[in-house]
């Protein structure tokens, strides 16, 4: 008994030795052994995929990646505190498209321009959509983040409702508005339209999108706020009417979650959304409209150029990190956006497209039949309808309150936008 045990112990000891020796051997080709990267990630579908892929990166390079998954507010607060306090708590930070102005102005992150030039071949930059590269992280000649998750604005609609009403898919905003009113039938709990109405970023972002599609603009040609322009007032009037007559009554309080849920529940006939949510409509685990839903290009106002909204997230490197960390962070970013890993990321459900090659990839196309639309949007992408200026968060907040109070009938479009303009101009 004792002898068996001691034999076992000997075998175990030998195994450990062998294993550790092979570990030493492996370390030679693992340049980042011992490095730990702290990643702050938005709680979007890519977050859990990042966490899933982290061990793989360790296997290949030796670096440990810790992914801190945060909600939007915490992410903005924590990373900003990290930057302004120079605490270097995070090495890699997911950056929302609209934060670029702040990042560039305050120099929070490493300017990646030279690194991209240096490693252009390895990155295969030509395969990345130029619109994503310039709007996610590109700002006044700097590249404050590397695009990582491109989201395309698309129109999700109910083909069954459109067919039974004898309508075709709307191509212009005017048609969409008309169809939305026609399709609405509260007695059947069917509404023609749904969008975010909740005070704050939710309502502001959705309205800015419809506003751009109707020919409005938040900034004037001089780059200063022009919130109460006639075009904006008109678009808000139409928008408010849609909310009051053609949207589910609760929409005035919807954020992204509420909006998507109402569409998946089958309440709404049309909804403009990010491509990242689209896989969910076809998933019987989350959706009640799996065989009734279709995706189309977002509508544009009659006579307006055919450009479509894009959004999404970039990866930035904290400027306060040590050089060693920065180098490791850049290796991690290059690894993530490489064609092979990025495809795997999407197969795992990240919904974060980036490369032209992904749009024609057979595996991805089989899983996401709407990819050609995403490609079309990225080819004609507009990442500026939400002004990516340093003052964006304040402007978004001002709009978030103004538009919401119009939607709930608390004030009229002109008065609300006049007041918003007065508040916004003070920021400049």
């Amino acid at each position, binding site marked *: 008994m004792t002898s068996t045990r001691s034999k076992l112990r000997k075998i175990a000891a030998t195994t450990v030795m062998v294993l550790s020796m092979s570990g030493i051997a492996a370390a030679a080709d693992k340049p980042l052994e011992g490095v730990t990267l*702290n990643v702050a990630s938005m709680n*979007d579908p890519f977050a859990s995929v990042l966490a899933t892929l982290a061990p793989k990166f360790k296997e290949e390079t030796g670096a440990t990646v810790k992914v801190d998954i945060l909600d939007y507010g915490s992410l903005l607060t924590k990373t900003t505190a990290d930057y302004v306090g120079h605490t270097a708590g995070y090495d890699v930070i997911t950056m929302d498209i609209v934060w670029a102005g702040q990042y560039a102005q305050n120099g929070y992150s490493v300017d990646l321009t030279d690194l991209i030039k240096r490693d252009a071949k390895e990155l295969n930059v030509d395969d990345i959509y130029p619109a994503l590269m310039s709007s996610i992280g590109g700002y006044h000649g700097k590249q404050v983040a590397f695009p990582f998750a491109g989201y395309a604005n698309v129109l999700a609609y109910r083909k069954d409702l459109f067919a039974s009403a004898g309508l075709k898919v709307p191509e212009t905003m005017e048609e969409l508005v008309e169809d939305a009113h026609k399709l609405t039938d509260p007695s059947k709990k069917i509404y023609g339209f749904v969008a975010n109405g909740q005070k704050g970023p939710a309502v502001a972002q959705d309205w800015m999108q419809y506003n751009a599609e109707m020919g409005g603009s938040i900034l004037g040609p001089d780059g200063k706020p022009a919130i109460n322009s006639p075009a904006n007032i008109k678009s808000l009037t139409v928008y408010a009417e849609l909310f009051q007559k053609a949207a589910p009554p609760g929409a005035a309080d919807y954020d992204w979650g509420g909006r998507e849920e109402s569409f998946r529940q089958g309440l709404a006939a049309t909804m403009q959304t990010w491509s990242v949510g689209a896989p969910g409509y076809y998933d019987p685990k989350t959706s009640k409209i799996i065989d009734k839903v279709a995706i189309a290009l977002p509508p544009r106002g009659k006579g307006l150029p055919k450009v479509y909204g894009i959004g999404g997230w970039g990866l930035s490197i904290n400027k306060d990190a040590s050089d060693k960390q920065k180098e490791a962070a850049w290796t991690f970013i290059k690894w993530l956006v490489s064609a092979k890993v990025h495809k795997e990321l999407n197969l795992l459900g990240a919904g974060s497209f980036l490369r032209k090659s992904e749009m024609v990839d057979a595996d991805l196309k089989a899983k996401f039949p709407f990819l050609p639309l995403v490609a079309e949007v990225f080819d004609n992408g507009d990442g500026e309808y939400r002004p990516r200026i340093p003052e964006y968060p304040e402007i978004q907040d001002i709009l978030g309150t103004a538009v919401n109070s119009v939607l709930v009938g608390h004030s009229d479009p002109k008065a609300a936008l006049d007041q918003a303009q007065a508040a916004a101009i003070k920021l400049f």
Partner: protein
Amino acid sequence: MTITRFVPDLARRGFLLAMLAFFLLPFLWLATTAYKPSVEIFSIPPHFGFTPTFDQFAKVFLVFDIWRLIAVSMLIAGCSAFFSLLLGVPAGYALARSRHPLAMGIAYFFMAVRMIPAVAALIPFYLMMRDIGLIGSWISVVLINCMLNSAFVSWMMFSYFRSLPPELEEAALTDGCHQFAAFWRVALPAVRSGVIASTLFCVLFSWNDFLYPMFLTKLDSKPISVALLSAYGTKDITWGTLGALAHFSTIPIVLIVLFLNRYFVQGLTRGIH
């Protein structure tokens, strides 16, 4: 029991049961979302029935390091409660027994500290923690929680000790009892219910506080309240995930309350009336 006492007793119990339903049913709804497939959490028209599943828990365990989150929460709550009592109970006692006019002022000062809006001190405190290198550590959360809690405990124990007649200790002191012993052996046991209530407050406060830990901790040192916040993403409130996470944030604290509650009632009945 006579019939005249029986009827009000029945009404009393009926009232309490109605209150229990009022206070528990909403929470029950969230708890059940954890066992529903995502597609069944909402429906039109809404109904309560569902096919049970553990998918939500599987997802929560995939995304969060649950046991670490709970352990950190316990560490923060436990440490801050312990040190708050250590600082606050003696202070409360001393202030209650002192006849110096300043004592009253200090007691009210402690009460005022509790009123400090978190955001007023948050950013300066962050910078202070940065300077001493405690950013990202749970210790910084204990430090700030302890500050708010010890002030509160001082104030609360101050009122408990004050309602305790001083004659008992005075008698002990005249018998040659050491001052600390008079506090420790005579006064303290008499206000046991107050100490337990204070502990309850401290634990609750630390356990549920999220603004400070959200700001001060990092991945390895964040408590479960902060994780709850991150389940409330902006693009999608994942109700099922939230329901499952809420189990882990609620069950430990309910157990603690269950446990302390026994002592609480004991303390109340054994204490001097």
